[in-house]
């Protein structure tokens, strides 16, 4: 059977190739779109986590997507938080989304920030010491070709790069809290507070204490951040469902079309097989196996093309995070194979039900 399938594909190389490429494109579409969106979410979660601390305190209606929030929390709340039993360190952060550059910047208070964050490491330069200095992460520095001492334009003002830190902490650009408050028109305001519990304290107890003191605020555990971002992302699940649906549909329609035209062309061959005693199951297996082979080749090609596409994205947009997990690789393969097999099912059943005498007489 395998020889017959292989010879049939070799006999019609153009159609086989187009089918394989179409299935591959479905895989690429799924992996790249999910890789980009999932990568962005993972990156956001990891960089937020990278700020340090055990909890984030925000207004009750705030989003974990800081770009969506305004800076309306009074910085003086910091003192109240510090009084809560078990709280070791608190730092206010003002987040500002730069629409023209399409990224976030954080205003931080260097003194309290270092009480919460202990991982910030510089590959060049040092922390900012003046109001018109910023520090940037390695990805931003590489993508913008910036180094220490270079000027950088933000919010209509010129800043100087004071240092380059290893990526993974908060935003790609950090500047003094006071400066950002001033430029944002929100003096003494912050978007959120990052809170670190005292060494050795039970996080649950500190969390309960914070909840008790700040009933009308949103308090997020850093450990839950990733899952919460995934769950609370607007339309992420719908986006994933849409991508899966499109990918399945591509495989389904292409294989349906390819297999339907195959069985039409091979009507006589199916008649011969029936005359030889081939059962309906044999004919169905023959068509399904052929489509399976096309889909497997499509999946393999899709993985290769996805790699090429991601390298191309990195070459053009080095700061864009792309995360393709093993789960999504397996899922994209399953989606392509399932779509292909479903598409082949109708032609396979139709072929198995052909009248052998009519099929033998088909020209």
């Amino acid at each position, binding site marked *: 059977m395998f020889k017959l399938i292989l010879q049939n594909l070799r006999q019609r190389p153009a159609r086989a190739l187009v089918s394989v490429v179409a299935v591959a494109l479905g895989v690429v579409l799924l992996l790249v779109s999910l890789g980009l969106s999932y990568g962005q979410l993972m990156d956001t979660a990891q960089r937020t986590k990278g700020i340090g601390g055990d909890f984030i305190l925000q207004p009750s209606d705030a989003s974990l997507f800081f770009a969506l929030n305004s800076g309306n929390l009074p910085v003086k709340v910091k003192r109240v938080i510090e009084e809560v039993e078990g709280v070791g360190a608190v730092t206010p952060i003002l987040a500002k989304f730069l629409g023209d550059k399409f990224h976030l910047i954080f205003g931080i208070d260097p003194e309290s920030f270092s009480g919460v964050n202990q991982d910030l490491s510089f590959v060049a330069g040092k922390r900012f010491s003046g109001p018109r200095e910023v520090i940037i992460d390695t990805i931003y520095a590489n993508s913008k070709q910036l180094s220490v001492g270079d000027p950088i334009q933000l919010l209509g003002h010129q800043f100087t790069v004071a240092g380059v830190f290893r990526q993974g902490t908060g935003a790609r650009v950090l500047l003094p809290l006071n400066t950002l408050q001033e430029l944002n028109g929100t003096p003494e305001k912050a978007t959120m507070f990052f809170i670190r519990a005292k060494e050795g304290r039970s996080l649950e107890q500190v969390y309960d204490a914070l909840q008790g003191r700040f009933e009308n605020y949103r308090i997020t555990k850093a450990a839950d951040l990733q899952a919460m971002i995934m769950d609370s992302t607007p339309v992420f699940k719908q986006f994933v469902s849409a991508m899966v649906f499109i990918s399945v549909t591509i495989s389904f329609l292409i294989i349906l079309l390819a297999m339907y035209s195959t069985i039409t062309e091979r009507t006589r*061959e199916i008649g011969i097989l029936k005359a030889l005693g081939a*059962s*309906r199951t044999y004919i169905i297996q023959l068509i399904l196996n052929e489509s399976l082979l096309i889909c497997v080749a499509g999946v393999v090609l899709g993985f290769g093309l996805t790699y090429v596409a991601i390298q191309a994205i990195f070459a053009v947009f080095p700061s864009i995070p792309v995360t393709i997990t093993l789960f999504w690789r397996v899922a994209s393969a399953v989606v392509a194979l399932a779509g292909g097999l479903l598409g082949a099912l109708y032609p396979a059943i139709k072929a198995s039900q052909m009248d052998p*005498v009519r099929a033998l007489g088909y020209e």
Partner: protein
Amino acid sequence: MNRDRITRKRAVVSVEDLQMIYRVGKVEVPALRGVDFTIQAGEFVAVMGPSGCGKSTLLHLIGGLLKPTAGRILIDGVDISSVSDVKRTEIRRLKMGFVFQSYNLLSTLTAKENIELAQQIQGSGRYEEGSAREILQLLGLEEKMGHTPSELSGGEQQRVAIARAVISRPAILLADEPTGSLDSENSRMVLDMLQGLNEMYGQTIIIITHDSEAASTADRTIEMRDGKIRNRDQPVLYAMEEKHS
């Protein structure tokens, strides 16, 4: 002739009041109008008659490719007209071998692969003489076993088709105009092969033909006209004389 041998054997094909009506839209076209005959195991029978008399329909019915409108077809005692499609396919796979006028080899496979595919479908190991390679050697096609049908002559293709039909030693070999597309030399070769299979292995053969020379290879002829049997037990010589008179 192996007539004495035949008379001691069992009936392998029994056709009783067989009727077949094709429906073309609302029009009914009768192809067979009550056909009866019996063929013994090891018999070589030629079915003759003019075009449209129902010969091919009869062959397809015996081979289980069609289901009759009425009547019974007993293959080794099993009525294939009343069994399910699955069972009929199984009987076809286990007991029938087909040879067609247009050879019907799979164009993408080589001669050897065509035979191997039939073995695979029919379940290998039922041909005592061995593999596809051996049967092609027996047929003098050893050099051509790696050739696809388009690289073979008509005669060679038909020899491969016969090898494919008998590789699993079916109870009945059904041949529909097997020499219809061949020149006289290749026709003779194919008929000799069929005769050899019948005489050496006792292969039951039913051949549909227009060709009186092809029919002369058989033990007896069944002559059909207008969907009925005109003469069911006619010795070949008599049939030929009558045809030419």
